[in-house]
C-alpha cells in the first residue's frame, strides 16, 4: 500500500529543515575549503590553507581560554545547580517556593545584560563593587574582566540548566528508595552516595556536558568581559575573523567547523548518557518525597541560596538601577553610591525615547512573534509526524530538529546569512531573516516542549476518535490539538522569550533598519554609553521577567 501522497509531508518537512539547519551548516563546511566566501560573486578555488593557518599561538591561546573559562564555569554551575536542586527536592529549606524561583530566574536574564551589569560591578577601580570594597577598607578588588570573571558569570547564569535537569531527576527518584536504604540502617551520607547519586548520575553528567558545551560556544560573555583586556575565546576569535577588516570568512569557517565538531561531540555524548531522552519535563506523579530536616544547617543552606540570589540577580539589578538613574558617573565612595542627590529619571527617559531603542523594541517583538508562531506551528507538525504517524523517514526528522543544539549560535548565524544571501529571495535585510535564524537556533527547545506533551498523550485517545468515525484531520483538530494546547503554547512562549534575548546569531543577520533590542544594547555597550545600556537593559529585563512570570502557567503546562 504505497501511496505517493504519503511522501509529500515528509518531503516538505525535510525541505524546511534542510533550509533551516542543514544548508547553513554545509555552507560553513564548504566555505572552510574555499579561498573566498561562497556564492558572493568572488571567484573561488579549493584550498586546505584555511585549516593550516589556524595552527598558530593565537588560536591555541583562544582554545586554552575557552577550555579554562568553560571548565571553571561548569564547576560553579554544578555546585550551585546540584546544591539547589537537592535542597529544593529533599530538604526542609525555608521559603521553598522562593528558592525554586531563585534557581530558575537567572535563566531569563540575558547573558548579554548580565555581562554588561557585571562589567560595571567588577571592572577596574570604578566598578560599583570595587568602590564599595574600597570604602569599607578591604584591600582587595574584584576583577571581572578576567578568565575567573568569565567563568564566574558563566557559572552563575548557566546554573539553572543544571538545576532543572537534576531537580527533575531527583523528583523521579522515588523517596521510597531512599527510605528503604534508611530502614536498612544506612546513614544520610551513605544513602546519598549509594542510592541517590547513582540514580541521578546520568542527569548529573548530562547536564554537566550540556552546560560545558553551552559555555564553549557562548559569545556575549567573553566578548563583553574578555575582549576589552585581550582575552579571546574561540567564539570571539571567529567573530573577529568575520568582522575585522580585512574579513577572513574562510578562516572563520574553518575555525567554526572545529568549534562545531567540539560542541557536537559533547552534545552527542550527553545524549548517549541520557539515553536519547533529555526532556527535563518528565516528572513523577505528584509524590511527596521525604523531607530531610536540616536542623542547624538550615540557615547555612539558606545563606548559600541568598548568596546566589545576591550575585546572580540583586547585584546586577543594582548595577542597572545605578546606571539608569544616576546622572553623575563619578562615584568616589560607597556613600555616593546611595546618595539620592545624583538620582534622576532623565537618563532613563532619554534612553527609552531614543528612536533606535523604540525601533529596536518593535523589531525584537516582530521577529520574536514571527519566530514563535511559525516555529510552534512547525514544531507541532514535526512532533505529530514523528510521534503519531507511520510516514516514511519520520525518525530522522526528530534528530534534525534537535541538531541545532550542537551548532554554536555564531556558526549558525553565519551559515544562515550566507544561505539567504545565495538564495534568490529578498530575505536579507528584513525581519524575516532574523525570525528564520531564531526558529533555526531554538528549534530544539521549541520542538521538545511539544514533543514531550504529545508523547504523553495515550494513543488510545486518538484511536478512540478514529473508531468513532473521525478522520485524521478531525482527530488532530478535536483531540490532539486541544490536549497538547499547553505544549504548543509553551513552545511558542519559549521561542518568543529566547528570540527576544538572542544576540549572537542576530549580529550577522541584522542591518541598520532591523536592529533588535539586544543589538542596540550591544552597540551602546561597544560605544561606551553605560547609562543607555543600563536603562535599556533594565526595561528589557523587566519586560522579559514579566513575560516569564505571566507565562509560568504555560511553562508548567509542559510537566
Amino acid at each position, binding site marked *: 500500500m504505497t501511496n505517493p501522497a504519503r511522501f509529500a509531508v515528509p518531503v516538505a518537512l525535510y525541505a524546511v529543515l534542510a533550509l533551516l539547519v542543514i544548508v547553513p551548516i554545509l555552507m560553513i563546511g564548504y566555505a572552510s575549503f574555499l579561498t573566498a566566501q561562497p556564492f558572493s560573486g568572488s571567484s573561488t578555488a579549493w584550498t586546505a590553507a584555511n585549516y593550516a593557518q589556524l595552527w598558530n599561538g593565537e588560536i591555541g591561546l583562544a582554545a586554552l581560554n575557552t577550555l579554562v573559562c568553560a571548565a571553571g564555569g561548569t564547576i560553579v554551575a554544578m555546585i550551585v545547580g546540584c546544591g539547589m536542586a537537592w535542597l529544593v527536592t529533599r530538604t526542609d529549606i525555608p521559603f521553598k517556593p522562593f528558592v525554586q524561583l531563585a534557581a530558575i530566574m537567572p535563566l531569563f536574564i540575558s547573558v548579554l545584560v548580565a555581562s554588561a551589569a557585571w562589567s560595571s560591578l567588577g571592572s577596574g577601580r570604578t566598578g560599583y563593587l570595587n568602590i564599595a570594597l574600597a570604602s569599607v577598607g578591604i584591600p582587595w578588588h574584584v576583577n571581572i574582566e578576567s578568565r575567573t570573571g568569565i567563568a564566574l558569570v558563566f557559572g552563575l547564569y548557566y546554573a539553572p540548566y543544571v538545576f532543572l535537569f537534576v531537580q527533575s531527576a531527583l523528583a523521579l527518584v522515588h523517596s521510597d528508595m531512599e527510605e528503604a536504604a534508611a530502614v536498612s540502617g544506612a546513614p544520610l551520607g551513605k544513602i546519598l552516595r549509594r542510592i541517590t547519586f547513582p540514580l541521578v548520575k546520568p542527569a548529573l553528567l548530562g547536564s554537566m556536558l550540556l552546560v560545558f558545551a553551552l559555555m564553549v560556544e557562548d559569545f556575549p560573555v567573553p566578548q563583553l568581559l574578555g575582549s576589552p583586556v585581550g582575552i579571546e575565546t574561540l567564539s570571539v576569535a571567529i567573530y573577529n575573523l568575520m568582522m575585522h577588516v580585512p574579513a577572513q570568512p574562510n578562516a572563520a569557517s574553518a575555525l567554526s567547523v572545529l568549534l562545531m565538531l567540539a560542541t557536537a561531540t559533547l552534545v552527542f555524548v550527553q545524549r548517549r548518557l541520557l539515553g536519547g531522552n533529555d526532556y527535563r519535563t518528565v516528572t513523577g506523579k505528584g509524590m511527596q518525597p521525604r523531607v530531610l530536616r536540616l536542623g542547624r544547617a538550615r540557615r547555612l543552606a539558606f545563606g548559600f541560596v541568598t548568596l546566589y540570589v545576591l550575585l546572580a540577580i540583586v547585584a546586577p539589578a543594582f548595577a542597572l538601577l545605578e546606571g539608569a538613574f544616576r546622572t553623575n558617573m563619578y562615584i568616589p565612595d560607597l556613600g555616593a553610591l546611595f546618595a539620592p542627590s545624583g538620582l534622576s529619571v532623565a537618563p532613563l527617559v532619554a534612553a527609552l525615547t531614543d528612536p533606535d531603542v523604540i525601533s529596536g523594541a518593535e523589531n525584537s517583538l516582530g521577529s520574536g512573534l514571527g519566530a514563535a508562531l511559525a516555529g510552534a506551528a512547525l514544531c507541532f507538525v514535526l512532533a505529530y509526524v514523528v510521534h503519531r504517524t507511520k510516514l516514511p523517514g519520520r525518525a530522522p526528522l526528530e534528530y534534525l530538529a534537535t541538531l541545532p543544539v550542537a551548532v554554536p549560535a555564531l556558526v549558525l548565524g553565519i551559515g544562515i546569512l550566507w544561505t539567504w544571501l545565495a538564495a534568490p529571495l529578498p530575505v536579507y535585510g528584513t525581519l524575516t531573516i532574523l525570525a528564520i535564524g531564531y526558529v533555526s537556533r531554538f528549534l530544539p527547545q521549541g520542538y521538545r516542549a511539544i514533543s514531550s506533551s504529545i508523547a504523553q498523550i495515550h494513543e488510545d485517545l486518538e484511536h*478512540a476518535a478514529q473508531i468513532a*468515525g473521525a478522520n485524521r484531520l478531525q482527530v488532530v483538530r478535536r483531540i490532539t490539538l486541544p490536549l497538547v494546547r499547553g505544549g504548543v503554547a509553551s513552545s511558542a512562549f519559549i521561542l518568543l522569550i529566547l528570540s527576544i534575548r538572542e544576540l549572537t546569531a542576530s549580529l550577522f543577520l541584522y542591518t541598520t533598519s532591523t536592529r533588535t533590542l539586544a543589538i542596540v544594547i550591544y552597540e551602546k555597550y561597544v560605544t561606551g554609553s553605560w547609562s543607555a545600556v543600563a536603562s535599556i537593559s533594565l526595561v528589557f529585563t523587566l519586560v522579559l521577567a514579566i513575560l516569564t512570570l505571566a507565562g509560568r502557567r504555560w511553562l508548567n503546562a509542559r510537566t
Partner: protein
Amino acid sequence: MSIDVAGLEKSFGDVRVIADLDLHVDAGKMLVLLGPSGCGKTTTMRAIAGLDTPSAGRITIGETVVFDAAKAINVPVDRRRVGMVFQSYAIWPHMTVYENVAFPLEIARTPRAETAARVAEVLELVGLGDFAARGASRLSGGQMQRVALARSLVNKPSVLLLDEPLSNLDARLRDHLRVQLREIQTQLKITAVYVTHDQHEALSLADQIVVLRAGSVLQSGEPIALYRAPKTSTVAAFLGYSNVFDATLTARTGTSGVARLLAGDAAIRGTVNAAAAAAVAACVRPNDVRVAPLNADAGTLPENAFAAELILASFEGSHIHYQARTADGVVWDAISADVLGALRVGDRVAVAVAPDAVLLLPQDGSAAEIDDD
C-alpha cells in the same frame, strides 16, 4: 452482524504474532479471546477494528469485506463502524461526559435533537443518566468504563470490541460491571469480541471462547463444553485446572487409563483423551480434590489417594484453599467448601480425587507460562 476472520497473519519485523488465524462470531453473540499476554489476542482485535494492518488474511463484518490482503482491500478504521472499549478507557479528558458520548454522532453529522436523545438513552442504559454534564477528568475508574461503553454503543455499531475493559477495576466493581456488560450485550443483541486473560471473565461472559497461544487457536467452544473437556493440558491450565502434572500413560482401556506421574512414580487413574500418546498430563480442578486427615495407622491408601503434608490452609470466606505436598514433592491444589474443617498446616493428610475428575490430556507445551498475569 457476524464477523469472519480467515487466514489472519501479523508480523512485527521477524516476529510472527498471529499465524493463520480463523475466527467466526455469529451475529448477536459474544466471542471471548482468552490467552496470556503476548498471545496475539489484542492484535487480533485491533486488526478487526482497523487499528493494525495484518500481513495477510481476510476480515469480513456482516456482508462487508473490511480487509483482504490479497485484493488490497483495507477499509480505514473510521469507516468500519465498530465500537470499541479500550483497556485505558480512552476518555477524552478535555470534554464532558456528554461531549465524549456524543462525539461519534457529531462526526456522523447526526441532528442535534436526535444526538441528545440517543446520548441520554445510552447514558441511562449504562447507569450514568445524571452524569452528562460532568467533566470527564473528574470520573472514577468505574464511571470512565461506563462512559467508554456508552460512547462505543451510541452510534449503533455493527460490532462491539472490548479490550480487557475490566482489568483496571477493583474486584467487586469488576464482578458488578461484568454482569451488567453481559446484560446490555444480550439486550441489544450486539455482536461482540471480548479480549481477556481472566478465565472467570471468559467463562461467565462468552457464548464462545477461543483460547489463543502464540498467535494460534488452541481450542474453541462454548464455555461449559470447553470447561468440561479441554483438549490439551495448556487449555486446561487456562481454564482453571490448577493441578497439571506431567505423566506417562501405562495402561489404557477405552476412555479409562492409568498414568505414572513423572515426579515420584505414583500411579493415577483418569479419563484418557482420544488424542493422547504416551506423554500425557494429568489435569485436575482444585474443587475436585478432597483433602482429609490421615491417621498414622491408616495402612495402604486406595487408588487415586495420596499421602501428603498440608503446607497451606488459606481461609477465603466461602471456601478454604489448601495446598498439600506428597513425599515425592508433588504439590496438590485443593478447594474445600467445608470451611469449618479443622485441618492445620503441617497435618498429615490424604489427597483423593475421583478417576472421572482426572483428565489425562496430551501435553502441548509448558503450563507454567499461564501464570504471567
